[in-house]
């Protein structure tokens, strides 16, 4: 078919372009703009070149130290919760009832934490984990383990990790459950005939079939935990000291606490780039695997 060329067609994409421009590109450009400038007051800005970036990425500077410190904490937090939530979610999915009323109850109970707003989860755990009036904190102290998230780094990490596990393990479990349900019975029957043990059924059938949902689950959980802000902010406020100051909390402190728009801008851009590149890696893994399956 002969396609006619008519540049007026650009008008047809204009609405989408405007929408994306207003809610993504323009705000981002504002941040880019700030990240290259410095200001003292009165809305007076000075060109600062790449100076903020140089400072940010230099671990010896004050800003760089804070950046790398909080980046490390954010990565550690994501790694810890993934290491707990993925195996735990898989185990929960394997142990879930397959049908009937028990399944309905189970699904509902598991969906509940997913429906709670982040700050509500934060408040629940802020109270639950207190050493004086919180059931959890009080119990742990009562059995002889000193636990106080306001002055102990370990306690504070225990609380925010537990909170995230409580909040989000269901997501992995539900994804895995859906993945497991998609495996035809014939696989299990064949494994029985082949005399495979339960462990081999898991390793040779279930795990390979779960690969796809697990990739998506890990991606979602990584992004979400890497950007976590509300819950640690409400429970610990980033403390004690800086022990639970994640990248996002640090960013807000710099931008709104100190009103250092230039530093915050530079940090935002680097933060965004890290997030995007992790997304890109996952996306590449998923598409490469699908291509391999499609080609074969």
């Amino acid at each position: 078919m002969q396609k006619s060329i008519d540049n007026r067609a650009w008008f047809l994409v204009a609405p989408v372009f405007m929408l994306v421009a207003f809610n993504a590109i323009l705000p981002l450009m504002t941040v880019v703009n700030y990240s290259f400038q410095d200001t003292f007051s009165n809305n007076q800005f000075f060109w600062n070149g790449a100076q903020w970036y140089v400072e940010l990425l230099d671990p010896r500077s004050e800003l760089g130290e804070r950046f790398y410190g909080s980046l490390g904490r954010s990565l550690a937090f994501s790694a810890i919760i993934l290491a707990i939530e993925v195996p735990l979610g898989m185990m929960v999915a394997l142990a879930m009832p397959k049908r009937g009323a028990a399944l309905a109850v189970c699904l509902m109970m598991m969906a509940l934490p997913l429906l709670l707003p982040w700050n509500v989860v934060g408040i629940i755990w802020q109270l639950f984990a207190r050493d004086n009036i919180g059931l959890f904190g009080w119990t742990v102290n009562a059995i002889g383990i000193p636990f106080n998230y306001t002055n102990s780094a370990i306690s504070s990490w225990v609380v925010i990790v537990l909170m995230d596990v409580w909040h989000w393990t269901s997501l992995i479990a539900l994804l895995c459950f859906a993945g497991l349900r998609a495996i035809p019975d014939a696989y299990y029957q064949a494994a029985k005939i082949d005399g495979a043990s339960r462990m081999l059924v898991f390793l040779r059938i279930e795990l390979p079939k779960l690969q796809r949902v697990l990739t998506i689950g890990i991606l979602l959980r990584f992004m979400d935990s890497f950007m976590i802000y509300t819950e640690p902010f409400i429970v610990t406020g980033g403390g004690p000291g800086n022990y639970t100051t994640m990248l996002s909390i640090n960013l807000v402190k710099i931008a709104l606490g100190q009103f250092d728009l230039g530093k915050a801008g530079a940090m935002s851009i680097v933060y965004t780039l890290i997030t995007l590149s992790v997304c890109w890696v996952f996306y590449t893994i998923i598409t490469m695997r699908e291509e391999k399956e499609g080609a074969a």
Partner: protein
Amino acid sequence: MAQIQLENLAHSYLVNPTKPWQWALKPMNMTWRQGGAYALLGPSGCGKTTLLNVISGLVTPSHGRILFDGRDVSRIPTEARNIAQVFQFPVVYDTMTVADNLAFPLQNRGVSKDIVAARVSQVGHMLGLEPIMNRRARGLTADLKQKVSLGRGLVRSDVGAILFDEPLTVIDPHLKWQLRAQIRRVHAETDVTMIYVTHDQTEALTFADSVVVMYQGEVVQIGTPQELFDRPAHTFVGYFIGSPGMNVLPARIEGDRAHIGSHVLQLTKGIAATPPDAKVEIGIRPEYLRVERSGPGLPVRVRRVDDIGRIKIVHCELDGLPIAAVAGEDAEIPADHVVLVPEPSQIHVYCNSHRVE
């Protein structure tokens, strides 16, 4: 090697079946000969797969016993029976190579490495899988996957029977013949009992020495393809085997005469009196009805003639009942009224759907 006997075997998914339809398998006694090639034929939902799963042990029968070479295995789990099964959708272990797939059942049973390697290469050779032994099973085509799952059954030297549950459903048509022929060849080479479930009569008739026809949870006939065609033991067999199926007409029998409405057909021999409230029918295959212009026989009205090349199928109506006949490709079929003359030896009498002599 195994001869499989079913003793009063029955299965219901309900605890206390009272009505006939509540039985997935109605009580049956039969023997599957060691080394036989059987086809289990029947429509969807007739209990074929249930019977297969009962034999392989995936389903525990609610009644009766299964004997392998005289040993009761009814309560023995699948993995301890010398049975392999190939499923409708090919089952392979995606992440393992073809060779590892074949070795899997042996490794799980603790067979020594040398024997595993020898058996795997032997079976790989038998099924023509040699060029792909080191490839991952994930990317294989459906027919190769099906061969791999057949291979997992063959590789065990203790396997006495291999059960196939509609194994060619997802295979491309031009590969179906090839794969079926290969299964036949493997059967000839190994002397393993094979039971092949299908709802496709061509597949059943070309695969098996013996065809077991099931209908509503009941085995209605076991026989060679020829027997099923010539002496259908049940009206369902007559209808299911052959194309077009057997004509079944309600009738009344008096000695050696069959009355169909006002028409009378002469039988070759007398039939014992049938119970008064029984449903009595006669069955005549279209192939044994000769189309004549006039004379003694069944006067019918021609409704449609299907010319399918080598033969013509003449669809007629006898007092409102459909009846079909087969005529040669050169036969001239009058447009309206003809007479169908049956071959007397090929008129079967059915009482409550079962054939009576």
